[in-house]
């Protein structure tokens, strides 16, 4: 019974020095995202130092349900100025 409107498609963007194109993923929470990215050789090394934003709001826990169309951003260590 997979109705069309049940599909949760989110976009994951990698900011700054992380050399990786955005991903479109069908996931419903950040735990799923963590599991996927921990297997990604290009991104793995960044995860321990990356902040995460959902729709441009920083989140500090994985307990975050995702809705269709959400934008997730990974922010590696910063140095403005």
């Amino acid at each position, binding site marked *: 019974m997979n109705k069309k409107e049940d599909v949760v498609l989110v976009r994951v963007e990698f*900011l*700054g*020095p992380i050399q990786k194109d955005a991903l479109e993923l069908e996931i419903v929470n*950040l735990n799923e*995202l*963590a599991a996927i*990215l*921990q297997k990604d050789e290009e991104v793995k090394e960044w*995860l*321990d*130092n*990356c*902040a*995460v*934003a959902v729709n*441009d*709001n*920083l*989140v*500090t*826990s*994985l307990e975050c349900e995702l809705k269709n169309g959400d934008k997730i*951003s*990974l*922010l*590696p*260590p*910063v*140095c*403005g*100025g």
Partner: protein
Amino acid sequence: MSLYDGSLDVPGILKEWYEAELTSNYGAYIPFVGTVRSEDGIDGLSFDIYEPILKSWFDNWQDKAKQKGAVIKMAHSRGDVMLHESSYIAAVFSPKRRVALEFIDEFVEDFKASAPIWKYDLKNGQRVYAKDRSTAIKGSGILGAK
């Protein structure tokens, strides 16, 4: 908050801000200007900015400033800024000096720790992420392996 491609016109921006607040009855105006230093053989620096989060971070500080009767201004460069050019100006205006002196310090330190801006060294024609000088944003690491 204003973002510019390339280096900042420091005298022009300091003048613009000063004149904009001339009759606002602030007694103290403290700009902080950051200029690219010659070190480690770099030719300059380069910056990436993620604007949506920078804007909400800045707006949050502006609210904090307002609660103390102060106002903050900020300018930053995008892209390449060469040696002895400036890439960053922040400024606080406040009625009295103590608020401004404390605010500029807190603001600049939090900017360094939190503003979504990435710095690269320009060296031998390469653009190299300044990893060692960068700071993980507070709350980082939630996607890492437990």
